[in-house]
């Protein structure tokens, strides 16, 4: 092995892949039944970069040669950068050797488009096939679905990979047209649709025949870049909601645009990454997936943008003061989940614990409720509760006054681009 050459390739092809934010290695249920190497179930973050993101998979491009010229992408055809390409065997060796040392949960393989979609997809599938069939590897494999790849290749990919993803790139078709004129939204949706149907079919099959092979057990995900084009949070979240509902996606990732290229269609190079907005979008996403919120409750025509100062759950609560205060010792779980400062686990603990005895402030605090926020919205077993008739904006001011936001040091403005 030529260590220096591999090191250089790894540097180039890991660097080019890092803007893909998906790091999940969970949701699969691949067991190590053959005394081989590895398994995949709940996912583990093996390390964290200095920017605080999880490192779970060996996330690399097979090559950064690309025939496309997407404005937001470092690997675009007309960008003057170093190019490199791994061989199939090199990726396999890196994966196995990193995995054996417990550095990673598996492989996340993406690629620039060389020649055409099928050639690229075929090479990705070949890596996964080799890992599974020659090396008995049961660790996690996430493959990128290359837009425009044939159904036959997608089917093969599903047999070896745990997860597949197509990046929608821009939240709307108009955004995509502007920045990625070579790409076509329908080409992205087709493989997604094919995989959705195939997954449903295979899951039915698996119910009937236990021995039927697994097919993309960790499902599909996608990613949208935010802050590169002028979409509102309402557009972003409605688009996410659409894909969750119609394509059974496991996750939508929101990637705050990192200005890497000078282009008059894009924010200037010195623009800061919209990290707060990204965080608020993830919070809103969580509300939709785990807290029973409908997208219209979070953003709508009156409120197209998320409030950057406060989280979207608090935002919803202060717009809906008429439903509060609620009694935590009586209310339904669904309603308790809507209280700012109460998380999923705390809500479940409250519902379990109140069967034994009514709960007061001290106990709520112990259970993990952020009482400084929740106290405006609940009553419990205590004669102390918020008696003032506060408006939503009063509460927002009080909460902001006593909280030290972790984002204060960062730039606060949501980009207004055009």
């Amino acid at each position, binding site marked *: 092995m030529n*260590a220096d050459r591999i090191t250089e390739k790894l540097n180039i092809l890991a660097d080019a892949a890092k*803007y893909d934010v998906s790091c999940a290695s969970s949701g699969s249920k691949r067991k190590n039944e053959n005394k081989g190497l590895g*398994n995949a179930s709940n996912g583990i973050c093996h390390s964290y970069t200095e920017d605080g993101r999880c490192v779970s998979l060996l996330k690399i491009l097979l090559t950064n040669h690309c025939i496309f010229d997407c404005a937001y992408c470092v690997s675009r055809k007309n960008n003057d950068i170093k190019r490199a390409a791994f061989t199939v065997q090199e990726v396999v060796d890196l994966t196995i050797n*990193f995995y054996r040392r417990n550095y990673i949960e598996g492989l996340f393989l993406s690629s620039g488009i060389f020649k055409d979609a099928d050639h690229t997809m075929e090479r990705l599938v070949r890596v996964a096939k080799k890992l599974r069939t020659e090396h008995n590897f049961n660790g996690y494999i996430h493959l990128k679905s290359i837009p425009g790849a044939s159904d036959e290749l997608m089917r093969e990919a599903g047999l070896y990979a745990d997860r597949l993803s197509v990046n929608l790139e821009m939240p709307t078709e108009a955004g995509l047209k502007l920045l990625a004129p070579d790409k076509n939204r329908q080409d992205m949706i087709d493989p997604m649709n094919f995989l959705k149907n195939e997954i449903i079919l295979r899951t039915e099959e698996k119910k009937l025949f236990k021995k039927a092979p697994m097919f993309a057990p960790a499902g599909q995900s996608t990613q949208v870049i935010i802050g590169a084009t002028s979409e509102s949070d309402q557009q972003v979240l409605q688009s996410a909601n659409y894909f969750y509902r119609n394509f059974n996606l496991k996750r939508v990732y929101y990637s705050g645009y990192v200005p890497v290229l000078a282009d008059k269609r894009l924010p200037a190079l010195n623009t800061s990454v919209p990290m707060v907005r990204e965080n608020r979008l993830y919070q809103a996403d969580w509300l939709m997936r785990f807290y029973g919120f409908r997208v219209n409750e979070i953003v709508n025509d009156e409120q197209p943008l998320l409030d950057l100062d406060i989280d979207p759950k608090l935002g919803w609560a202060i717009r809906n003061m008429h439903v509060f205060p609620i009694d935590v010792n009586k209310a339904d779980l669904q309603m308790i989940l809507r209280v700012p400062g109460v998380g999923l686990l705390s809500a479940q603990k409250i519902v379990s*614990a109140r069967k034994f005895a009514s709960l007061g402030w001290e106990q709520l605090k*112990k259970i993990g409720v952020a009482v400084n926020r929740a106290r405006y919205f609940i009553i419990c077993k205590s004669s102390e509760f918020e008696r003032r008739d506060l408006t939503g904006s009063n509460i927002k001011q009080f909460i902001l006054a006593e909280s030290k936001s972790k984002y204060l040091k960062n730039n606060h403005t949501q980009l207004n681009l055009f």
Partner: protein
Amino acid sequence: MIMYTLIYDGTFEGLLTAVFEIYELKLFHVKLIKGEWHSRALFEEVLHIITDEKRAGRVLNGLRKKLSAAGIQRLYIAHMAEMEQEESTLIGFIRYVFDSDQNIEEDYGNKYVMRLSEIIKMVRREKHRMEAFVRFQKLKDEIFYSAIEPDFNVLPLLIRHFKSRYADQKWIIYDVKRGYGVYYDLHDTQYISLDFLEGSKPDNAIAAFNEDEQIYQRLWKNYFNSVNIASRKNTKLHLRHIPRRYWRHLTEKI
């Protein structure tokens, strides 16, 4: 009321025996301490608990009638973690179990139940961290070796995970803080203790590395640096995920 100090041997059976004695002797204020028998201050009643399997068994059977299997396992794990000064929580919890008519596992309004749930949360987190932070180094004899220093005693809880994941390679995970390890020989695991040569650190075995080892360590460090996005630097978050005390065993942070 007199405060009784009970001294036991640190085993789970010992803890259960202590519970037996508390009920047998109708003690009320008690403190349980792990340790050797030696004389204590005056005005303090000290009892030496001698672990007794029969008595421990009776207490365990009593617990089984009032707790779910998972509840008993949580108690066992909380004890094995060897957190200092938490014996009183475990005693308090067990007494609350016996003094209640119904299963109180989920009564989080009770301080012992809540504390036990916190302890379990801390142990689980440490176990999960070790599943993430173990870094194997491939030695000349094809054994993958890793040193760890977990906050709590979680090595026994790691065996199942590593055995099923790395079924086709020999490995050792060694708790250098507590001086014992687990060795997997492709079939079974066993507890081991290693005698390290005078002056040589157990986690420093470069001379024994397999020839590929340093190449992959370097590739991993390179990879770790390549995936960082400098314009998103967030040291506070980084440190919350990997506190500094874990760095000395992490290849990418050395």
